[in-house]
């Protein structure tokens, strides 16, 4: 009997000992093959590098007002021109990128954590836990997001919250309206997963709930979470821009891409001084497009069953 077993082992032995593989490594290899996603990823990395490192190389302080240099078009000393207070647009653009990206990523982290946690709990425990969480989510989803943000922004202005704190409050606001959609997705995925055969196998092995949840279910949710998280960043950047554009999010003098466009909010700026609003517009547009391309690429790359 021992001989038959070792024979079988012999037959299945390939010439070379395979390297210890990793699902993440394989997924990255698949991602590398997707050109558009890689373009998005590279662009985002460059954008982040420029925004976070760039201002150190700028000769202008971002808040520095120069009355002699108001509304000047692009030139060698001011590559993207200056605004109505004589501030250098490029420097402000990079500063604004820091805030926009931070707000986007932070509110994504918050809304994904809340959404994933609540969705996972609802799907795993079902019953009344599910009912309570999903009804709250339903209520939040019935309230239109933008008017809600407007109201909250108006209340914040009324309370005279210091501008430094408003950034954080904007992040929280964005994540509070962002989580229900994700919670629903995670919950439905969870309901599918818990009926799967490998969860039956986990039941037969008598595994604890904790192990089932963290070892079997959540790892199967991570691809979904990563994709949704990526796409959420884009959404959050857009929402922040919209809010700031309406003067309800981050308020001047702190620059964001949204309120930079807001500052160019007159017909004469629009017609005669495109350097005021085109650069932040392009920054928002390109960043969000890149994030969406990356998210789409990740969606395909993270499926372990997919062949290269």
């Amino acid at each position, binding site marked *: 009997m021992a001989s038959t077993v070792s024979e*079988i*082992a012999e037959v299945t032995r390939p010439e070379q000992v395979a390297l210890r*593989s990793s699902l993440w490594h394989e997924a990255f290899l698949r991602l590398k093959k997707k050109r558009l996603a890689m373009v998005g990823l590279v662009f985002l990395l460059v954008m982040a590098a420029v925004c976070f490192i760039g201002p150190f190389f700028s000769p202008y302080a971002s808040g520095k007002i120069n009355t002699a240099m108001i509304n000047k078009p692009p030139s060698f000393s001011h590559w993207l021109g200056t605004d109505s207070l004589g501030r250098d647009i490029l420097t402000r653009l990079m500063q604004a990128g820091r805030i926009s990206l931070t707000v986007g990523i932070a509110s994504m982290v918050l809304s994904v954590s809340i959404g994933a946690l609540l969705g996972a709990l609802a799907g795993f425990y079902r019953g009344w836990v599910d009912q309570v969480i999903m009804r709250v989510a339903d209520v939040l989803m019935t309230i239109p997001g933008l008017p809600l943000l407007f109201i909250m922004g108006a209340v914040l202005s009324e309370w005279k919250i210091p501008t430094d704190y408003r950034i954080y409050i904007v992040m929280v606001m964005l994540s509070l309206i962002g989580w229900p959609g994700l919670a629903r997705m995670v919950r439905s995925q969870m309901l599918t997963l818990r009926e799967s055969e490998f969860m039956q196998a986990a039941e*037969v*092995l008598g*595994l604890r709930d904790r192990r089932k949840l963290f*070892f079997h279910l959540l790892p199967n949710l991570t691809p979904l979470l990563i994709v949704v998280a990526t796409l959420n960043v884009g959404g959050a950047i857009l929402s922040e821009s919209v809010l700031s554009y309406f003067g309800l999010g981050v308020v001047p003098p702190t620059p964001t891409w949204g309120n930079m466009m807001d500052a160019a909010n007159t017909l004469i700026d629009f017609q005669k001084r495109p350097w005021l609003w085109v650069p932040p517009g392009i920054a928002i547009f390109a960043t969000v497009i890149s994030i969406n391309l990356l998210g789409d690429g990740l969606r395909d790359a993270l499926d372990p069953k997919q062949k290269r």
Partner: protein
Amino acid sequence: MENNLLEVHRLKKYYPITGGLLGRTIGHVKAVDDVSFSIQKGETFGLVGESGSGKSTTGRTILRLLEKTEGEVRFQGIDVHALNRQELRALRPRMQYIFQDPYSSLNPRVRIGEALGEALLDHGLLPQAEVRERVLEVMALCGLATYHVDRYPHEFSGGQRQRIGIARAIMMNPDFIVADEPVSALDVSIQAQIINLFAELQEQRKLTYLFISHDLSVVEHLCTRIGVMYLGSLLELAPRDELFLEPLHPYTKALLSSVPLPIPKKKRERIVLQGDMPSPANPPTGCKFHTRCPYVKDICRQEVPAFREVSTDRFVACHLV
């Protein structure tokens, strides 16, 4: 009955059919309908039948992967369906299940070494340091190359995956294993290897199997006693040789006549059943088999035949025997 490892007594598993505006229960699918049998220590009990006859549901209800509707399952004297969650969890290592589909029963994101060792850790049966060693040992025993321990399920072939399923089931040294059509997803040459593995493991570890299959030749090779299921009920139960030499129930006769003979030219009388198995939601009155039975009498349409012992250890549910 001292030797009985498992006793199944009048087990029923009904699924409600809901309908109408209010979603009321308007009927039941009788997936398992009044099944009784016992399995002795060290034997291999075969459960055969067409697809949809309730074999898998029986197996899953025995291990309480499904909740019963009525009846009793006693494993080593313990009423499995009366345990609370903690007690059931404690009993799990003693009785294991091998799934029909080795693809979907392995988590695609868990390396097989972890999949095999996790139950030992979770139940605290071995200290962490010894788990890997034991995993490698069992992998070798099941004919898996030990250097595959860090691979993911999608990197294996069907036969290898089924070996992983078997390895996972024997990892905790269970007394009893329900094998749910473990070879039907594999091609014939691999089937033979896996069946031999089952036999070897049984010899080594004194395992008791409930072997569910629709393949009569596999069951004949492996099982000591065999139960024939039809539409959720057991029609016949007999030791292997007696069942194959002298089937009593007309359904068993028809089933056996469908097995190809290994001797060419030798002809066997072929009993071909007409029609399909009726719906378990609306089973025929009287004997469930009467709609397709070639010997049907009036009594078959009216009275349910009792599942009775006709000679030592031979049970049959038929009016004509």
